[in-house]
Every structure is written in structure tokens, then in C-alpha cells.
């Protein structure tokens, strides 16, 4: 019956936000733009990377800028055989949680990998930065991670 028709419509929501980043996240993003990785110091002196204004466990205010890495160790990973349209890479890759040398927390990013056997916990990695003139102070200023060939 014609009046049983159900109407559908494409519907797009856009959030055109520009966020102010503040001094702590700002220091990290400034570091990425300049090809460096920095964190901050939280409770008991542990180094938080990526940095937040507060220690994620205790909520205490963090302080200082601490340069870490740029190499680090994979603390966990997952492997994506079929990337989704908004994923940072469009060929099979691994999500990697990376603990930069000198850091006590891990940072999520991507590492190109044709199969799950190309990534493992404990593997040593380093960030591959985007070309300098393309870096703007954004988490994607790191294009991806690559294995250094070592193991921790």
C-alpha cells in the first residue's frame, strides 16, 4: 500500500570545532610539530605521555615538561585487516599502545602491518613524523610508528 511507505533521509551532523588546547596538551602538540615527544610529571614523579593536566590515576595536578623517546616499546596491540574509512591508514595496520622510553603510561597510534605476526608486545618502535612543512600541532603529526628491529 502506498501509504505504508517509510521515508528515509540522509542526515549529516558536523561539529566544526576548533579546540583551545591549554599549556599541557599544547606542549605535547608543539613538540610533535617540532619533531619531539614530551610528557609531564604526575604523582610520585611518574611521567605521563601523552600528558594531561592531572594525573589520570590520582587526579593531582601534573607539572613540568619532560622529553621522552622518541623510541618506545609496544605494551599492547590489535591488528586491523580491513581499515575503516576514517582510520589513519587505509592498508592493514596495527593499533599500538606505545610506552615511550622514559614514560610510565602508553600512547595510542598506528603501525603499518600486513599481518598480526608483524607486531608483538615488547617490540621496539619509533615514530615516523609527517614532513615538517605538513606538521601543525596535531596527533597526526606522527604519521605512524615503525619497528626499529630491536626488542625490549
Amino acid at each position: 500500500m502506498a501509504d505504508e511507505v517509510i521515508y528515509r533521509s540522509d542526515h549529516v551532523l558536523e561539529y566544526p570545532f576548533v579546540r583551545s588546547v591549554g599549556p599541557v596538551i599544547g606542549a605535547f602538540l608543539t613538540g610533535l610539530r617540532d619533531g619531539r615527544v614530551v610528557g609531564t610529571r604526575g604523582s610520585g614523579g611518574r611521567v605521563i605521555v601523552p600528558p594531561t593536566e592531572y594525573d589520570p590515576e590520582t587526579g593531582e595536578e601534573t607539572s613540568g615538561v619532560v622529553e621522552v623517546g622518541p623510541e618506545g616499546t609496544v605494551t599492547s596491540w590489535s591488528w586491523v585487516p580491513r581499515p575503516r574509512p576514517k582510520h589513519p591508514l587505509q592498508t592493514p595496520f596495527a593499533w599500538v599502545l606505545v610506552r615511550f622510553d622514559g614514560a610510565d603510561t602508553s600512547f595510542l597510534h598506528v603501525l603499518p602491518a600486513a599481518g598480526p605476526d608483524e607486531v608483538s608486545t615488547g617490540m621496539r618502535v619509533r615514530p615516523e613524523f609527517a614532513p615538517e612543512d605538513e606538521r601543525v600541532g596535531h596527533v597526526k603529526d606522527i604519521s605512524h610508528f615503525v619497528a626499529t628491529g630491536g626488542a625490549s
Partner: protein
Amino acid sequence: MSEREPVTMMDAATRLDYEFTAGVAMSKNLHGYEQGKFIGQRCPKCKKVYVPSRGSCPTDGLPTDEIVELPNTGTVTTYCVVNVPFAGQSIEIPYICGQILLDGANLSFMGLLQEIPIDEVRMGLRVEAVWVPPEELGPTLASVKYFRPNGEPDADYETYKEYL
């Protein structure tokens, strides 16, 4: 240290894509516009007629399954004159935006008022819908081009005071 200015802002633009489905009741209403008709629904308990209906009586929480076709005429319960330009505006300012209570309906909706000088618009004005040409009718309230005075005497305040 960086010789450039520190980063203070970040582009965080986000986009999400949806396929919206109108639901059973709203689809019946939209289908009406496609045919040049106002289609509402009646509550089985309080007998109020909602146009458009979302399928439920918001007072009683019951399904409004009974379909009611409403006439082309109604009353302006209240109105405003729009003098302020805004993004996406499709009509030249100033224009009149009226709340239209169709005859037999218990819910008013917003409609454009035309063919009347701005200083002559009033509460209680009797109006009729002007539809777009048949070939332009679609499942959208935009099928109603606008409302215009239909020449009848103004409605008595008592007939629409519940809908302000």
C-alpha cells in the same frame, strides 16, 4: 626549544553521517504532503488530533493509530515578524512566521504567512494553505508554499486560546 609560537589551538572538526528514518506516523504525515494533504492522527483516549504526529499522544502515551485528514484552512494563533538575517535563510526579510492551527487539529505548527501586509497580521486571522504546483509536491512541509488570508472573519479568541 621551538622558535615558532607554541600550539594553542587544534582543529577538531568532526562529521557523522546518518540515515534518518521518519517512523510510521511521521511517514504517513509526509506522504500526505506528497499528495497535497494534511494528515494527522487522533488519540483513542482524549480524542485530540495531532498534525504532525509522532505516533503517540504526548498526554496519554497511547498509539494514535486513527488517521485524520485535515482541511486546508486554519487560524493564526500567534505570529512574529522576522527582521533578522541568519545563515541558511531562504526567504527575503522581513517576513511573517505564524503558528497555524488547522481546523479540527489540536496542535499548531509553524508556517510562512504571505499575501498580507505585515501591519495587518493578527491573532485569530483565518488562513488557507497554498501548495506548490502538483509536479513539485514532495514528502516535506515545503510542499506548503505558504499560508494566506482566506477572507473569513477572524476566529473568536475562545476557539484557539488553548493553543497559545
